[in-house]
């Protein structure tokens, strides 16, 4: 049993070359005429295979729109999205998404939920079942296999959704603010869990957040996004080994520098939302904030 899990993990690690994602000259907007808003404008970036890329940007800037484009729910106005050289034409199992809102099926027991993707494509054998069992045990849901999602707490539901996505071995794993709305304690636990799961699987992942500490805790690479219309303003590599802890990050010099860099990049975008005198007030507040981080 243990052996089985290990070989599975090894094979997963071997797949880390999948999921090379390219976003090229992307444009997207909503509405027509006077109602028209441009949400994404000339956005370009790449996701390295086997890396955890965290996208951070002010809320409302267009991150979820980008996630939906990647998932294939939306079609871009212009530009292209490629995964391993293939164009994204619609939803597909090579890209799985975990949202802030729970999307578990309340009428299926948790195990069935986790198996849904495999059941849908008729790939469910004894091996798949064992893998789901092992994964559910790993994230502390072993006792809830035959219960319904309604009986799970928010954090447990999120973990189950991750299991459901992971057993399908997506080339790209998209997480759109998955821990938003969880209480601080659960959130920290979930971040640690996720970092660990990522280390074991090392599949290409795009993690969207508005929280700087979450970004620093998780990321191999951070993409700082501009306010709307959105594009990448800075790309920062976080070459600090995992596991990372919040306590450790406060002491680490490299981490402090990265935090200041991310904060500055994010700030110069966030400040655009203020105008006139309130901008000066916000700027003063920001200077104070920087002092505390340095």
């Amino acid at each position, binding site marked *: 049993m243990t052996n089985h899990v290990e070989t599975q993990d090894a094979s997963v690690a071997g797949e880390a070359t999948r999921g090379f994602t390219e976003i090229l000259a992307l444009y997207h907007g909503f509405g027509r005429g006077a109602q028209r808003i441009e949400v994404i404008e000339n956005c370009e970036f790449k996701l390295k295979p086997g890396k955890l890329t965290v996208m951070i940007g002010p809320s409302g800037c267009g991150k979820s729109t980008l996630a939906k484009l990647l998932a294939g729910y939306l079609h871009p106005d212009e530009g292209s999205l490629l995964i391993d050289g293939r164009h994204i034409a619609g*939803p597909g199992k090579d890209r799985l*998404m975990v949202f802030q809102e*729970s*999307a578990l*099926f*309340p009428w*299926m027991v948790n195990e069935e939920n986790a198996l849904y993707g495999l059941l849908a*494509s008729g790939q469910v054998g004894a091996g798949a079942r064992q893998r789901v069992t092992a994964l559910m045990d790993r994230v502390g849901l072993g006792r809830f296999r035959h219960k319904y999602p*309604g009986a799970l707490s928010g954090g447990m539901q999120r973990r189950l959704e991750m299991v459901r996505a992971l057993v399908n071995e997506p080339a790209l794993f998209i997480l759109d603010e998955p821990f938003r709305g969880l209480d601080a304690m659960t959130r920290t636990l979930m971040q640690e869990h996720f970092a660990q799961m990522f280390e074991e699987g090392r599949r290409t992942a795009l993690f969207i957040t508005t929280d700087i500490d979450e970004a620093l805790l998780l990321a191999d690479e951070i993409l700082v996004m501009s306010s709307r219309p959105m594009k990448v303003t800075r790309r920062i590599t976080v070459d600090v080994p995992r596991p990372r802890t919040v306590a450790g990050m406060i002491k680490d010099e490299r981490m402090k520098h990265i935090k200041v860099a991310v904060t500055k990049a994010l700030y110069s975008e966030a400040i655009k939302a203020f105008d006139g005198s309130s901008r000066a007030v916000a700027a003063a507040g920001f200077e104070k904030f920087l002092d505390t981080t340095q």
Partner: protein
Amino acid sequence: MGDVMQNHPAATAARKSRTLRAQAAAGARIAQLLLGFACAFLFWYLTVDVWQLPRFANLPGPSEVFSEWFSPDPIYGLSFYTPDYYWHILHSLARVGVAFVLATLLGVPLGLLMGWSQRVREYVFPLFELLRPIPPLAWVPLAILMFHGTETPVIFLTFLAAFFATALNSMLGARSIDPSLIRAARCLGAGEWRLFSRIVVPGALPQVFSGLQISLGVAWFSLVAAEMVSGEYGLGYLINTGYSMATYPTIFIGMITLGVVGYLTSVVIRLIEHALLRWGNDEQGGRS
């Protein structure tokens, strides 16, 4: 953690007091229910038998109705002891049963399809909305012209209203499904059929069942109306002839029986619902 708690004496005591409290609550509910019935019967008894109020002068009192009902040799020919009584019940039950099953078999799939596919909805729904408000009784002439014999028109009328209620609620059920669930299923690779059978159908089921409850109610309603118009047996027929033959206690026997039988059929639907919707039963707190 659960095992430790279970063996703890305090936990056992707590559980015991919880069962006791549950029993007390159930007892209180039954007491309230009996009290309600007692009040109704007292009202009936006082107005008819004791005070003999003018408006109630023609009605039989509870004593007369119940002595007739339980009499092996009933004055007006109908009681628990006469086979006719059960023959009436059986006829009504069979008609409602056939009409309800037909309405369910046709209404649920049509409703779900209307909810699921915009194309189907665009074709069917306007017509549906036009026909739905026509009361079943307005269909009586048409029913008699279209169907021969006595049974089929009655069943057709009973079926109609039930069908509309079922289809409408099934459609609303299918449309009420959280779009993020459908998106998630698509994303996980579900094809159209799988999406329909594993997501749309179970997701709509709670609403489908509330539709079935409504449908059953209107089925009984139209059945009795139809049986009053035509038919040789059935509770509606019984009540109607009770009036025209001036055998008034029989009217009450028919009415009370109708209430009890109607209630029992809706209990059956509720039991089926409970068995099928187990996920709704042990849901704690639900999704946020």
